[in-house]
């Protein structure tokens, strides 16, 4: 058996002897193993469903990696169809990123694959399946294939005594006609960490503690709003990246695939509900009790009367130096395509659906400004693989004069941004990670039906 130290030593020979290094990688014990397999999940005493999960649990285990320290993760596919695991928010090469469209090989039925990469950047990331579901609302992101991934050091901007990882997810999907005349997924159950309110363990805290919440929205399609009754939340990071201006907010809005890190001062003893702000979603189960030590009271909820959130409040207060070369602008017009009142809509980027979506090849090292022009009636959580981007402008109504974005944001680095319906948003990124790069809407039904584009480097 080769130890991890031996393996790392062997790996250092990569430049001299790539075939031998590859052989060594295959011999070494992996740092983590993930078994993708069917599982029967008890969401509550009344909700039992069959799904697919990582290592038999939902969410999957927290993977703790160290920045710039190579890691090997072995993934075995025990399901009846090919799978792939996407390392969301990491700067991985395209053949390991976990998107088949970029060139990552699928893990065939009954096979095992090894993902060996150097994790970066530091922060709260996650891993999940990156397959298609189409009309089957039990597969792909509709299933339980998601888990937390932390790359240390996390550059935590605040001290904390205890941390909790919370995954928001929706289950038992069915298609329902919506107001814009097409079918959309709706859900019978919503959970935090795979359990409805009252069925899972409470979050146990002590008075005077500062807790750090890592909130992930792993829902296939739904935006969620979360509050902790009796407490405020100080947002310190978005998508794992520290924000320039941490703010204390009454609630979090977390779009599909987004992550929010928030610090909470536990200064109001009792038993409180941390849950979805919207009544009908919390009624489906999306809540968990937060229990102070030695308190057994019934969990209390304080219903907010409004939904409050914007990205802008976390931006840098002073614009940074803008003397560098202007970025290359890439307008992307996002539209739906009607397929009948009995079907989900298809999606286009600049008039085409994947795989016919394309833009000019990226030039390595250049700065790009993606201009999202959302003509549709839906909000879209847009995700760029293998890169982070900086939010530059948000929320400009398309009807505004000239379509110009009204704000000039700086410093918020993300890999997912929710672009509201009928608005324009702009982000910038540097093309510094060559290789095929997928851009898509993170709503499973949208990416299934054409809302993807592969960016290539020149």
């Amino acid at each position, binding site marked *: 058996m080769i130890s991890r130290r031996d393996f790392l030593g062997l790996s250092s020979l990569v430049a001299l002897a790539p075939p031998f290094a590859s052989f060594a990688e295959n011999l070494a014990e992996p740092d983590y193993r993930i078994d993708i397999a069917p599982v029967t999940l008890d969401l509550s005493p*009344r909700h039992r469903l069959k799904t697919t999960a990582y290592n038999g649990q939902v969410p999957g285990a927290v993977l703790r990696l160290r920045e710039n320290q190579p890691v090997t993760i072995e993934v075995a596919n025990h399901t009846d169809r090919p799978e792939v695991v996407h390392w969301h928010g990491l700067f991985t090469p395209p053949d390991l990123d976990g998107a088949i469209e970029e060139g990552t090989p699928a893990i065939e039925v009954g096979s095992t694959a090894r993902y060996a990469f150097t994790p970066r950047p530091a922060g709260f990331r996650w891993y999940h399946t990156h397959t298609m579901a189409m009309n089957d609302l039990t597969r792909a992101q509709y299933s339980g294939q998601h888990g937390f991934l932390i790359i240390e050091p996390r550059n935590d901007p605040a001290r904390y005594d205890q941390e909790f990882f919370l995954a928001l997810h929706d289950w*038992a999907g*069915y298609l*329902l*006609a919506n*107001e*814009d*005349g097409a*079918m959309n997924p*709706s859900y*019978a159950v919503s959970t935090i960490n795979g359990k409805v*309110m009252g069925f899972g363990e409470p979050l146990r805290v002590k008075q005077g503690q500062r807790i750090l919440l890592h909130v992930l929205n792993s829902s296939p399609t739904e935006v969620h709003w979360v509050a902790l009754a009796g407490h405020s939340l100080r947002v310190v990071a978005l998508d794992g990246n520290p924000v320039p201006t941490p703010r204390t907010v009454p609630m979090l809005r977390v779009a599909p695939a987004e992550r929010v890190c928030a610090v909470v001062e536990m200064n109001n003893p009792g038993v409180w*509900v941390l*849950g979805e*702000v*919207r*009544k*009908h979603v*919390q*009624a*489906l*189960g999306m*809540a968990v009790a937060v229990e102070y030590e030695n308190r057994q009271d*019934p*969990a*209390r*909820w304080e*219903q*907010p*009367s*409004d*939904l409050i959130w914007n990205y802008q409040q976390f931006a840098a207060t002073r614009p940074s130096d803008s003397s560098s070369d202007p970025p290359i602008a890439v307008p992307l017009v996002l539209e739906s395509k*009607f*397929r*009948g*009142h*009995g*079907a989900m809509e298809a999606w286009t980027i600049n008039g085409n659906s994947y795989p016919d979506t394309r833009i000019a090849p990226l030039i390595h090292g250049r700065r790009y400004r993606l201009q999202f022009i959302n003509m549709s009636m839906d909000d879209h959580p847009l995700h760029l693989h293998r890169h982070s981007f900086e939010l530059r402008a948000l929320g400009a109504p398309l009807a505004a004069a000239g379509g110009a974005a009204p704000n000039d944001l700086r410093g918020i680095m993300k890999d997912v941004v929710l672009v509201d319906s009928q608005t324009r948003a702009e982000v910038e990124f540097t093309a510094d990670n060559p290789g095929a790069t997928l851009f898509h809407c993170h709503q499973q039904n949208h990416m299934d039906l054409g809302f993807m584009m592969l960016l290539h480097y020149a």
Partner: protein
Amino acid sequence: MPDRPASPWRRRVAVLLALACLPLLARAQANYEIQVYGAETVPPETLMVELHSNFTVEGEKETIDGMYPTNHQEHETIELTEGLNDWSELGFYIFTSEQDGHGVQWVGDHVRPRVRVPDSWGWPVGVSVSTEIGFQRSAYSTDTWTWEIRPIIDKSVGRWYFAVNPALERTLHGPDVEQGWGFAPSIKISYDFTRVVSGGIEWYADYGAIGNIAPVHNQQQQVFVVTDLNVSPVWEINIGIGIGATSATDHLIVKAILGRRFDWGRHSPVD
């Protein structure tokens, strides 16, 4: 504590009890409401107001058993439907008729409760059941009290829409009271040409009493070519022209349905 979801088991029992309590049969509304029902019900805290306008271009020209001829009758029906919860509604009809020599006349009223299978049950088709009971003046229908039970099954598949209403009906007061149950099915098939414009066929039949099916010439058989205009989630527009294929059916009818939803509830973003 947060709001807790209603027990699915309790909801199922409630729906099944409601179905079991439905009255048995009703008589068709002839040419006052010409519509194949979809399974969806009006949402709670919402009032749907519909105006059904039907003009008989070519119909019965003689007075029979004291009943006015249908030829050139203009029927205006106001239908008010209030959503009770996410699986039931209550409808109310005011039937009127206008005709040369008779002026504008009130014809009658019906009430129509309806329940449906909630979406969250995940059934592959939409299913609901309505029952309708009401009165109409003898000058417009010799059967003055009628009762209808209408199962409704529908399904949207891509651009296609299918709906079947195998309605059963009976007379409670009038000459046909001894006939018992009658069978009056209707079917709709339509296709979405665009997000706004759909077109299709609606077929309405009345075979007479179950167990004593009427001869073909005494059956009612109507086929309408229709279009639905989906201009807005709050508006409903259906226009059609239909022909009657038997001597017992009005031969040519033009129909239109104009509906508007009024959301009267106080909704906040967190509801």
